[in-house]
């Protein structure tokens, strides 16, 4: 079983992806034996109220049991309380860079205090694109690693899954007990073996960052590992983190 923590759907500027429909994306994930995928709405990143765009995503993914919805929570838009009240999501996602939101702001503290009660992991997206290739009107600074560590220490009861961190960021972040990382933006010579020298397999989850990236590329990194490592990354760790039942 493979559980993918990092799949998106929606509109994104400058994107000409290989998959033009949600159905074709599902077909690709199934072909690659990805059996569950946490999906979030790209429209919710830039739309003024993520509650509305997340509702649309929920409708769209209904025919596809492969998907597990992740709700986008913007701490500076107060409608996030609605997202938490209804247990429609298996995880909540934050993209602080896209909202010019420092993780030390009061609104984030308030949100995280509420998330402590939600019993759901929090997915924190460092970036959606390599900074070098972001378009000029959408240049976004990634959240600071120090601030994420501060947040993780302040809220030790919250499980934080950091998506799209670079190698140096991921190795630092994964040292915190309540932080997990994916490998979608981690690439080195023999990626997994290099990374495992610094981070134990128990702190890694599988994330492909589809459709931005080819999901097969993320699989190629993990498939280089021993069976026990593959099992932990593909599904074992996810089962510990997610409310799958």
């Amino acid at each position: 079983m493979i559980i993918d923590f990092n799949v998106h759907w929606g509109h994104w500027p400058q994107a000409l992806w290989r998959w033009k429909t949600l159905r074709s994306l599902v077909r690709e994930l199934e072909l690659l034996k990805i059996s569950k995928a946490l999906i979030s709405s790209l429209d919710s990143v830039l739309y003024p109220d993520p509650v509305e765009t997340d509702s649309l995503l929920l409708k769209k993914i209904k025919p596809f049991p492969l998907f597990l919805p992740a709700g986008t929570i913007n701490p500076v838009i107060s409608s996030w309380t609605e997202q938490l009240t209804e247990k429609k999501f298996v995880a909540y996602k934050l993209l602080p860079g896209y909202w010019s939101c420092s993780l030390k702001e009061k609104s984030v503290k308030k949100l995280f205090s509420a998330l402590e009660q939600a019993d759901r992991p929090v997915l924190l997206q460092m970036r959606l694109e390599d900074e070098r290739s972001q378009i000029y009107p959408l240049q976004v600074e990634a959240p600071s690693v120090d601030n994420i560590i501060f947040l993780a220490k302040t809220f030790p009861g919250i499980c934080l899954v950091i998506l799209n961190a670079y190698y140096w960021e991921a190795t630092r972040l994964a040292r915190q007990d309540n932080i997990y990382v994916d490998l979608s933006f981690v690439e080195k010579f023999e990626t997994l073996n290099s990374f495992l020298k610094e981070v134990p397999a128990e702190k890694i989850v599988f994330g492909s960052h589809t459709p931005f990236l080819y999901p097969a590329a993320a699989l190629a990194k993990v498939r280089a590992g021993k069976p026990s490592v593959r099992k932990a990354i593909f599904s074992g760790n996810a089962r510990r983190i997610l409310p799958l039942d």
Partner: protein
Amino acid sequence: MKGKMGIYDFHVHTTTTKILPLLRSAARAGISQMNILGDVLRFGYYPDVQQIRQINEETACLIKKYDFLKGFCFINPGLPVKEVLREIERCAMSGFAGIKLEASVNVRDSRLKPVMQAARNLKLIVLHHSWYKTTGKLPRESEPVDLAFLAGRFPDVPLVVAHLRGCGFRGIQDLKPFPHIYFDTSGGQPVSGILEYAVEHLGPERIVFGSDVYYPGGRDFAVQISCVQHAGIKEKEKRLILSLNAQRLMEKK
């Protein structure tokens, strides 16, 4: 590793001549031939004559030892022209197949002229770094639109533009009018959609596989190959990109 039917990797760097782990990793990924471009970042973007020579000596040592490796001579066109030409000729005499240019001098600079003329005379392929960067652009780094300028001036020198995914959709359009220009598939994250777009707009014949593995630090053969193997293109187009185009280009040389 030996053999002509596997994948041809057009773009590999190494910081060391002890490359057995690199060769084993490549073999596991199905790569049977590769171009060694040297440790082009060892001395920064403006290496001197001695530093250039040191990098190329290491490449020479590798291509002498392994016949399935081809060498590309790394050059800084900003150095005195006599030295530049001497180094190119020295490398050509040692069996190098091409010239590798990085970001020492922008390709619009007139100092590229003798380099391109030497490539033409010695039948060397030129492989040039290029990228459209929103941030972190180097002062003399060449963008695809600059490469288009060079391509127009030297229509008889085969030129491979590195980093298709870094050049992006705009770069593909910039270089579309020049049939002697190729792209290698490398460039940052395994972003989907750009290779498909390139095949549609350039044709699959103008694309070669390049991993940009920088041994022992950067990039992963299996990841880079998966970007071609799982792209939304035809099987015969994948074969062209992974092997046949590079074979043809190197044979022409």
